[in-house]
């Protein structure tokens, strides 16, 4: 194939598979921490202490950095495992990024021009989004498995069903808008995946909280797991913040897509199935943002809207690319 460096493409595939394996190892670590540690409750208590505790009538200047945790005497094994899982995840992300970079070098083009490449980039963004959330909210660390599981599934799907050989770009894709449009979409969608995971956990937790208060409640094994999740309000807020970050990005991505479509196809919007679903996704997340600001829709109802949004993203990525044909036939499947 002209213009394609075969051995580099091969190396990229190898790195891709390796990163899946590394993520799987990290996921085992996170899951172990989640299952055996008491991390959820402990870290929650150690999370930024409300200033209220520091106040007393005529209170003296007892202010100390609110974030200082009550130093644990010894680090329990589960905590150590969790820390290692983060390190392993970072390693996996590095290998993953290398795989994408090498593929880009092999095809001498941006590495997100078919479904396989797009899925790979989205997966990486999902992992990076989670690492960024960890930076701000370390208490969520033991939830890593919940983020890595969909990433691994996505990458597995990418490497098998969606895989396509490295190929040069057809003329319509030879545009710098491809780079801008697709990278923005994959960042936004990768982040929205993290938001969906947080939302599912929020729903699990709030269901658990409600059941917990009922008389005669006996915790099952799922209940025991849910007990370790951070407070429902924390999960809800984290999910919102990720959407607040992603929604403008997604908006810019759609606008860039429209600018590109204007240059390539002669109209900025044509209700092509891909465009229609991008519109549906955008409107659903706008619904989510409104729902959070509307009495009676806050909380669980809004959470379901968030999940519907991610459902639409998934539909757009899988069903529209594979089943419904349109101008956006970049899938690379044959």
């Amino acid at each position, binding site marked *: 194939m002209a213009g394609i460096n075969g051995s580099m493409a091969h190396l990229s595939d190898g790195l891709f598979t390796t990163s899946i394996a590394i993520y799987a190892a990290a996921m085992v670590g996170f899951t172990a921490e989640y299952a055996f540690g008491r991390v959820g409750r402990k870290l929650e208590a150690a999370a930024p202490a409300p200033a209220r505790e520091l106040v007393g009538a005529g209170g003296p200047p007892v202010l100390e950095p609110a974030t200082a945790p009550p130093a644990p005497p010894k680090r329990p094994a589960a905590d150590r495992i969790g820390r290692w899982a983060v390190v392993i995840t970072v390693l996996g992300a590095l290998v993953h990024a290398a795989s994408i970079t090498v593929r880009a070098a092999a095809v001498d083009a941006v590495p997100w021009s078919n479904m396989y490449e797009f899925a790979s980039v989205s997966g990486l963004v999902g992992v990076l989004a989670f690492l960024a959330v960890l930076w701000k909210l370390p208490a969520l660390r033991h939830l890593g498995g919940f983020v890595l599981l969909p990433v691994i599934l996505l990458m597995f799907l990418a490497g098998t069903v969606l895989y396509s050989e490295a190929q040069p770009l057809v003329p319509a894709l030879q545009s710098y808008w491809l780079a801008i449009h697709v990278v923005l979409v994959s960042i936004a969608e990768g982040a929205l995946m993290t938001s969906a995971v947080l939302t599912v956990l929020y729903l699990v937790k709030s269901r658990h909280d409600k059941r917990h208060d009922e008389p005669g409640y006996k915790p099952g094994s799922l209940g025991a797991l849910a007990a370790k999740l951070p407070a429902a309000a924390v999960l809800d807020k984290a999910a919102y913040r990720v959407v607040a970050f992603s929604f403008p990005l997604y908006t810019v991505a759609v606008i860039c897509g429209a600018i590109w479509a204007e240059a390539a196809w002669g109209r900025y919007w044509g209700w092509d199935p891909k465009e229609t679903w991008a519109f549906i996704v955008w*409107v659903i997340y706008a619904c989510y943002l409104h729902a959070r600001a509307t009495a009676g829709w806050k909380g669980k109802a809004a959470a379901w809207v968030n999940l519907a949004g991610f459902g639409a993203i998934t539909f757009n990525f899988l069903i529209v690319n594979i089943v419904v044909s349109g101008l956006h036939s970049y899938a690379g499947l044959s």
Partner: protein
Amino acid sequence: MRRILRPLRMAWRRLTSMRTALILLFLLAVAAVPGSLLPQRPLNPDKTNSYVAQHGGWGRFLDSIGMFDVFGSVWFAAIYLLLFISLVGCLIPRIRVHARAVARKPLPAPRNLDRLPENGRFDTADTAPAYVAAARSALGRRWRIVERREESGAITLSAEKGYSRETGNLIFHIALLASLVLIAIGRLYNYEGSRIVLQGADNGFCNTISQYDSWKPGRFAAEGKVHPAPFCIDEMSKFTASYTASGEPRTFRADVTYRPSLDAAPRTTNITVNHPLRLEGDRVYLINHGFAPQVTIRMPDGSVRHDVQAFVPTEAATLLSEGAFKQPGKTDAKQDIGIEGLFAPTPVDTGNGLITSASPRVSDPVLSVFIYQGDLTGSGAPQTVYALDHSKMKKIGKANLTIGKTVTLPNGVAVTFDGWVPWAGLQVSHDPAQGYLLIAAVAMVIGLLGSLGVRRRRVWLRIAPGSSPDDGSPTVVSVGGLARSDSGNFTAEFAGLLTRLETAGTPVEPNVSADAIGAGKD
């Protein structure tokens, strides 16, 4: 009168409520779904018609409720319009409220600051007025601060920031409204014409309706209210297509000579897939391309005709193309000649005389011809130039021809495949609103960044002077904070702010407040 007005007002209030907006947004998302799953007539009329035909009554039912033109249907327009009205209705009061909020001073401090979600308290050795000055500079310029004095002698500071959150939100919604209007204007006044242009002289066209192969005007453009700008594409001097070894397309390029207006001097440029020719108000796109075989036909009466016809690709991957040549002979003598043709750029013989194509690249192409003689008018139904209606004709021969080869039939009719020229499908698009739409879209993004990124915060300080300043009892500062938006981590933010506020004052000597520490331990 009241009887009529009251329900109207209630209906208006309900329409412009957040909850209605939410439901309308949902409906908009749901309504768009069939538009992506069912074939749509404006995008693909043939597929739509065959779908309707296949599904009988169900298909006709879906057709009657507009399911095959969702985005042009009445109900989609109804949702869009209701949303528009709702948006206008909710924006007007919000703009007024926000303008007032910006003009107004921050609210006075609540009586009990320690009831607020975030609060704290500390002492300072500064006098109350001195601390007020210190606190103002610690807060910085981002906060709007109002100072008040309470009856007890305490000074309060009301500080507020993040007004641009609501400003951004309003800009977003207004820009959204503007976008809806601009999209509608664009759709009413746009037009789109397309034309196939063969490479070589004498095949150009000017931007007038009669010279297009197809012409799709917006509603108002159709009524002659829009006069297409007069420019001409005089000639496509060269069309270039390049492919990879495996037949994947690499580049398409049309070199054209054009005049931006009728009396302008001719200019040359090239049009490629992502780079249309942009003229004042109009854009010219390279949409597709194909082959136009050239033939020489010896008619039954011995006369010789030269013909060249654009063929349409039937296979996108290999550009196997089909088309027709039609040469009328003497009227009423059944001496018309019609030829159905198949053009294979890289021919492959599939056995039993059928030719197909292996690649879109041209390499010893073959033209398969099916030659008919008779009456070209056929059944009288409208005909396309790409197909032959041979219902009143008789097949008199067939052949697979390479370039330069001739087939001669027993009755003297002969067909020679002389060669081919490429053709390009050019599309001319006009949308007077799209530039403004881009501006509105950028405003939407800027508004969103403010709306979702800016943190709206209120903080109050109550600075109570010590009971007897002379004996050095300290000034007590209580602080309360309220996050008016969910962005950021206000708990951590407030803790940081509290530390800054405290260190801004002069610390109290530890021994002075020894008993106060005890009091604070509860």
